[in-house]
């Protein structure tokens, strides 16, 4: 593992650089999946369940098939493909063996249907209007079943069992058990503690709401499928498609040139990909399947809602003695991802116990959304701890500095540690001592208050691949399997190559987003691309430099080709990125309205590869977090199980008028690992933003808001 060169020697890395594809994105030339048009292409639409839980008694597709222009209708009767990534026992989506043994299989079309909006049928027709007309001609008879929407309620004995095994999701061994973490003895810890506090926090379903709705164009040439689809990981999408369709990986090509965001709900393959592929196979024509915004809201996935019970024991000097979480995550009726609740790991405490139940409900399916298990758990535990600090009559920062993590799970050392520096420098920049006051001390109609939060988030190393070709014209072509979800991966990969090769960025070309052209990449999820694929680019560049030293520069038709598939390790240490957020809010005590006046986000994500885009990442993450704290929710009608707020307006997604100025401060530390010392950044901004807003509201009005989103009605209720 080489050490990082000194900052001053870097020519490209560390310098603010506009995206290499920015011009395509501002001129309308960037080709997103929905812009792909193939000759003779059919259009597809999906009929979705109008019931939250129902047995399908009969489907009549004859009238739809009789409509001129309709080519094919798929239902659960003629299509029994399992969507592996749609529901995996224990959320362990990457393990094929577990997918084989699971008893809770999710088919592309299921009977019974288990949530409002679940696919019931799909139509392919010569144009989208005919496909939409055909949906109206499909007759479905349902026998409605009882439903349950809340994750705690779902575990009551009288609640309907959504699966025969019950409503606790089965784990990798097909056992209905919660995820448990323990160290020390919490009961002993509570006995020793001078004070014990208990409370309950809840968070809601927040949709990823990426701007580009789900779309897929599928085309077969013989036995080979080509899929133009917005995916965060071309490699894992290809593998999932091949496994679900029972064909070898090399018989699937996944292409994603530009994608309009995803924040976690465009990873893996999606049911839309399978439906388009099957319609195209059976009709013999290319098929474009487009989801409407409402379908995307209820038919893809959003962040899992949680209920969190905390019990905290502290000694009279404010030191944690015991920490216990009992949590429930609402997964919808299929467990697409883990359902974890993070945050316990933030505290140094000898006695810890976390028990989290992933629970089935008849709501929209939950899954990964930017830092999947973090913002909801961090809101819960950091609100809880902020409250403990208040009750112990301590400044929240003093409490955090006394109790925050110093080693991973109190045991394993971090690869480096700058959490305290993040907090202290952020407090200075924010002028914490000036802005924070005794909670509730402000008593006017407009009340100001300040809050803070902090974070650690995984920044692991891992396997990825890159190829670099040098031709006789001096062009360096980098082949990487990234798709650039919007975080700037293409630019970062090019910058890394230019830096390591010692050439200007303009000498580097990039080939990306195509499984037939590019090597494996981990994909843009888990904030891993820079660390993993970026490291592979460095290794490939080193290989190329060695070849140049041995063979000289290529001439004529010759080219040099270098490749690397490194799998670096962090040598028994835990790599984490660190951060601290500080928010000042203003609460209108008469209207319940919250405005964010000032927001300072301090992050140590190691070396910042491109300050321009990294700053945008943090600003965007924080702003999404503010939306989660204050507005966003998918509200359900409790009797029918119908979502009422599916869409941008209803779910109250942040707009220009809601977004405050976010000040971003980077502390760049080198831990000796990762490409030029980089750590993760993509998810870091949202992780603790919700908690900072919640704590600032408490400081403002002296009332602890325990249920997200913190809407006006809740604030007025708390002040009443």
């Amino acid at each position, binding site marked *: 593992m080489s050490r990082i060169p000194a900052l001053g020697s870097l020519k490209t890395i560390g310098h603010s*650089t*506009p995206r290499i*594809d*920015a*011009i*395509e*994105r*501002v*001129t*309308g030339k960037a*080709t*997103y999946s929905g*812009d792909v*048009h*193939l*000759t003779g*292409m059919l259009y597809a639409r999906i009929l979705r369940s*109008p019931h939250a839980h129902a047995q399908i008694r009969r489907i009549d597709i004859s009238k739809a098939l009789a409509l001129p*222009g309709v080519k094919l209708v798929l239902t659960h009767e003629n299509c029994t493909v399992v969507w592996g990534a749609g529901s995996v026992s224990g959320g362990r989506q990457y393990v094929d063996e577990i997918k084989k043994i699971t008893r809770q299989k999710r088919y592309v079309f299921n009977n019974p249907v288990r949530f409002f909006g679940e696919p019931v049928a799909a139509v392919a027709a010569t144009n989208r*209007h*005919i496909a939409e007309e055909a*949906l109206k001609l499909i007759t479905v008879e349902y026998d409605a079943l009882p439903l349950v929407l809340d994750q705690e309620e779902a575990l009551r004995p009288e609640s309907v069992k959504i699966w025969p095994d019950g409503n606790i999701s089965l784990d990798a061994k097909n056992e209905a058990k919660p995820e448990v973490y323990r160290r020390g003895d919490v009961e002993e810890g509570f006995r020793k503690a001078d004070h014990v506090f208990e409370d309950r926090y809840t968070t809601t379903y927040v949709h990823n*709401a*990426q*701007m*580009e*709705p789900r779309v897929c164009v599928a085309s077969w040439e013989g036995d080979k499928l080509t899929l133009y689809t917005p995916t965060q990981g071309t490699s894992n999408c290809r593998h999932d498609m091949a496994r679900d369709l029972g064909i070898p990986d090399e018989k699937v090509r996944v*292409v994603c040139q530009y*994608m*309009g*965001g995803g924040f976690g709900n465009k990873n893996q393959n999606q049911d839309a990909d399978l439906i388009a592929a099957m319609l195209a196979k059976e009709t013999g024509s290319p098929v474009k399947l487009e989801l*409407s*915004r*409402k379908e995307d809201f209820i038919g893809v996935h959003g962040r899992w809602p949680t209920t969190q019970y905390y019990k905290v024991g502290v000694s009279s000097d404010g030191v944690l003695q015991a920490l216990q979480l009992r949590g429930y995550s609402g997964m919808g009726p299929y467990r697409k991802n883990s359902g974890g609740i993070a945050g316990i790991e933030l505290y140094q405490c000898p006695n810890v116990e976390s028990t989290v139940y992933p629970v089935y409900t008849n709501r929209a399916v939950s899954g990964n959304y930017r830092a999947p298990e973090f913002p909801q758990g961090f809101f819960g535990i950091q609100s809880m701890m902020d409250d403990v600090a208040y009750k112990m009559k301590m400044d929240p920062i003093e409490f955090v500095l006394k109790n925050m993590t110093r080693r991973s799970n109190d045991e394993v050392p971090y690869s480096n540690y700058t959490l305290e520096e993040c907090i202290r420098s952020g407090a200075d920049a924010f002028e914490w001592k000036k802005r924070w006051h005794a909670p509730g001390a402000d008593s006017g109609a407009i009340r100001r208050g300040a809050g803070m939060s902090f974070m650690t988030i995984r920044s692991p190393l891992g396997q990825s691949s890159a190829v670099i070709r040098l031709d006789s014209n001096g062009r360096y072509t980098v082949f990487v399997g990234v798709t650039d979800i*919007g*975080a700037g991966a293409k630019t970062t990969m090019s910058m890394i190559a*230019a830096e390591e090769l010692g050439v200007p*960025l303009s000498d580097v*070309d*990039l*080939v990306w987003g195509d499984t037939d052209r590019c090597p494996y990449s981990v994909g843009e999820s888990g904030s891993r691309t820079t660390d993993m694929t970026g490291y592979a680019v460095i290794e490939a560049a080193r290989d190329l430099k060695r070849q140049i030293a041995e063979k000289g520069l290529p001439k004529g038709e010759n080219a040099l080709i270098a490749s690397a598939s490194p799998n670096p390790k962090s040598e028994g240490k835990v790599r984490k990125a660190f951060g601290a957020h500080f928010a000042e809010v203003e609460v209108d005590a008469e209207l319940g309205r919250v405005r964010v006046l000032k927001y300072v986000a301090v992050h140590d994500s190691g070396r910042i590869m491109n300050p321009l885009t990294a*700053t*945008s*990442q943090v*600003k965007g993450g924080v702003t*999404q977090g503010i939306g989660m704290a204050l*507005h966003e929710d998918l509200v359900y009608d409790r009797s029918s199980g119908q979502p009422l*707020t599916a*869409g941008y*307006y*209803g779910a109250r*997604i*942040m*707009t*220009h*008028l809601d*977004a405050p100025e*976010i000040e971003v401060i980077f502390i760049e530390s080198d831990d000796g690992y990762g490409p030029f010392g980089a750590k993760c950044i993509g998810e870091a901004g949202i992780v603790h933003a919700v908690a900072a807003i919640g704590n600032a509201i408490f400081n403002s009005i002296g009332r602890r808001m325990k249920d997200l989103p913190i809407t*006006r*009605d809740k604030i007025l209720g708390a002040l009443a």
Partner: protein
Amino acid sequence: MGKRKRYISRRQFLEGTGAVIAAATAGPALNLKLPAANPPATDDVAPGAPSTAIRLVVNGTEHRLEVEDRWTLAELLRDHLGLTGTKIGCDRGECGACTVLLDGNPVYSCSNLAVWTDGREVQTVEGLAHGEQLDPLQQAFVEHDGPQCGFCTSGQLMSAKGLLTHNPHPTAHEVQAAMAGNICRCSNYNRYVEAVLAAAATKDVTASKGNLGHSTASTKLGPEVSATKRRRNSRVSDTVAGGAR
């Protein structure tokens, strides 16, 4: 649009998607060598579908077309004129990704029927640059990192263009208010506002308006649907969104 390519083979398309893109650093050089990977689909009107002959000007070029009455303007632009720079994010007037200028005013093209644009003038993101010369707004969006995923960018640009045409030197709040109907889920709002203010500070931004070079036809058929941009200063809890399909 006389030279527009109506059909493209799949093979041509595949070659297109594999093309490498020169790594451009900052600077206005426009890479026009990119193959058109998004050809017009077909302007065939479905048999039996009610349709109307219209005449409209798009980015300075006049089109006489037979359009199905149910086509939205967004659909006409994307599927039948090959202008896929206009994106459809929600198709129901909530997100603003499909914003275009209709007679100089920003409108949601998903919420205007194509037949309503008869006799009118449309400007899309493809009409912003002059050849290889980016509009100052586009240049500012590049330099200030406006687009993250880029899917809302065309709409943000067109709303900003509409604003600067009428108000060449807006305040930050005026920018936010004018673009409140353009959602960016990457939430790069700070950057977009910075970029619009930076573009407004450059002199030539207003000079580039009215580059279409065609007088706007005066006939207007059908209902006038003006800019549907909502101002969402006040939020309503538990708003019920559109009904179930």
